[in-house]
């Protein structure tokens, strides 16, 4: 009887507890080390509320009249960049996703190569891709579209590859048994199974790309960011405010549209 009473129940094994403690310790150490060494000038922080008020005062009244002459067209360009970039990304990501999915491509070295492509595409930020493409194609929407496309490969390809790996073997095996070639396998075997995931991924990525396309202009890659950059460089804060309001409106509308579409499709 006493043996049962004295038994101490613990949620985690000692190894688990050591692992968790190590992680907590590492996180706290990283935060403390960062806070102690990061170069922050405290005087700037005390000044911040005043500066923010000053900025808001310069932004008011918003230059509403600037919208038709200087914001509308670049804004439409931004939307085109986001959409075309997403389309191009999907075209490039689908083959890589097929290579990355272990059940579709049974060669581990090909899987790893495809995953390396996906991770590298994702690690280089859209703006950094944009800098590359501006150097190659010159400033303009083409550089922006390609930047969006190449960065999005990583995200779309990874999620699509995971969706393919979760596809049910049954219908694929049935098609294989009937002697279907690989294209039929892809179109009639995998596509119907990944279709909902595919549209979800594409819509989600488009939503992100609408936000990203608004800042591409800061490095000269076209869209509404170029107008924002000009306004900021000339300290025309009331125009900058107009552009920010326009971006806000478009982003909110895009988010509502994608949520509604997703409800319809899924």
């Amino acid at each position, binding site marked *: 009887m006493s043996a049962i009473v004295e038994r101490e129940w613990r949620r985690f094994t000692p190894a*688990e507890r050591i*692992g*968790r403690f*190590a*992680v907590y310790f590492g996180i706290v150490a990283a*935060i403390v080390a*960062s*806070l102690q*060494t*990061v*170069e*922050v*000038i405290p005087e*700037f*922080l005390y*000044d*911040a509320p005043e*500066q*923010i008020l000053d*900025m808001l005062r310069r932004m008011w009244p918003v230059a509403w009249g600037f919208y038709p002459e200087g914001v509308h067209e670049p804004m439409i*360009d931004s939307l*085109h*960049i986001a*959409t*075309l970039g997403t*389309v191009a990304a999907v075209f490039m990501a689908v083959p890589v996703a097929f290579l990355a999915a272990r059940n579709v491509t049974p060669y581990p070295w090909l899987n790893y190569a495809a995953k390396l492509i996906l*991770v*590298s595409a*994702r*690690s*280089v*930020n*859209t*703006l*950094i891709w944009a*800098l*590359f493409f501006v*150097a*190659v*194609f*010159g400033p*303009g*929407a*083409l550089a922006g*579209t390609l930047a969006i496309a190449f960065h999005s490969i990583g995200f779309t390809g990874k999620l699509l590859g995971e969706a393919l790996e979760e596809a049910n073997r049954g219908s694929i095996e049935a098609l294989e048994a009937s002697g279907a070639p690989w294209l039929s396998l892809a179109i*009639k075997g995998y596509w119907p199974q990944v279709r909902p995931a595919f549209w979800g991924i594409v819509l989600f990525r488009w939503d992100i790309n609408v*936000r*990203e396309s*608004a*800042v591409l202009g*800061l*490095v000269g890659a*076209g869209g509404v960011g170029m107008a*924002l950059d000009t306004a*900021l460089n000339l300290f025309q804060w009331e125009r900058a405010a107009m552009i*920010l309001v326009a*971006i*806000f409106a478009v*982003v*909110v509308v895009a988010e509502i549209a994608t949520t509604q579409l997703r409800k319809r499709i899924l």
Partner: protein
Amino acid sequence: MAARTGSTDLAFPPNWWARAAWLLFGVYVFYAASHLEFTPARFAVGLEHGAKFVSRLFPPDFKRWELLVKGMVESLQIAVVASALGVLISAPLALFAARNLMPVWASWPARAIMVLCRTFHPVIVAILFVKAVGFGALAGILALTVASIGFLGKLMTEAIEEISLKQVEAVRATGAPFLSVVSYAVVPQVFSRFVGFISYETDANLRNSTMVGIVGAGGIGGTLFAAFQRFDYDFVCAIVLTIIVLIMAGEILTMRIKRVFKV
């Protein structure tokens, strides 16, 4: 028998609505591409430039590694501090925003804050903070903190709203005060999901902290942008390779951490 020969059911009947939609979409793609003036000639010129550009990227030049390390360390610091601040702010905010635990007057403003934080791209927020607190790492930290609040807050709120209320009721029935309800009934149910969200957001912050420097908010981005403008393409290549390695290392590390917490 006649019925069987007469039926012309196809195994895969054509979906004309879908085909029309695809056609319309194709027309749009061509319209948009011509609107943005994408021409084959531009691609041809670009490819020529591209070959020259790529040949100047290699071999990467690591001679100025001190500058590189300084920028990378600052990016790391920005990512760590911004993630920590983001978690500290978004966890209580998510608790307020959860509609199953809080009345409407508390959840509505909390949700509005999150939506506002999520709307603008971190780079735009960084521009505004550069104006407010000057050039440097502080602007980057604040910008990424705002981005983290928007993103983590949304995910955490959804996680809290999906918990089982039975445990909450059980703890409440013992007469426990609100904080005990949170720590004994809510946190254990969402903890492992939070670990997943936080590690994802830390990865995202690391990626973005290499970029905010382009608008003067600290980190390697400033060095990269300057190298681009001076056409130091071999140094650019060194920086980008380092960024890729660092981000991959970060992803492996967060994967390990998730394994420790069995997410």
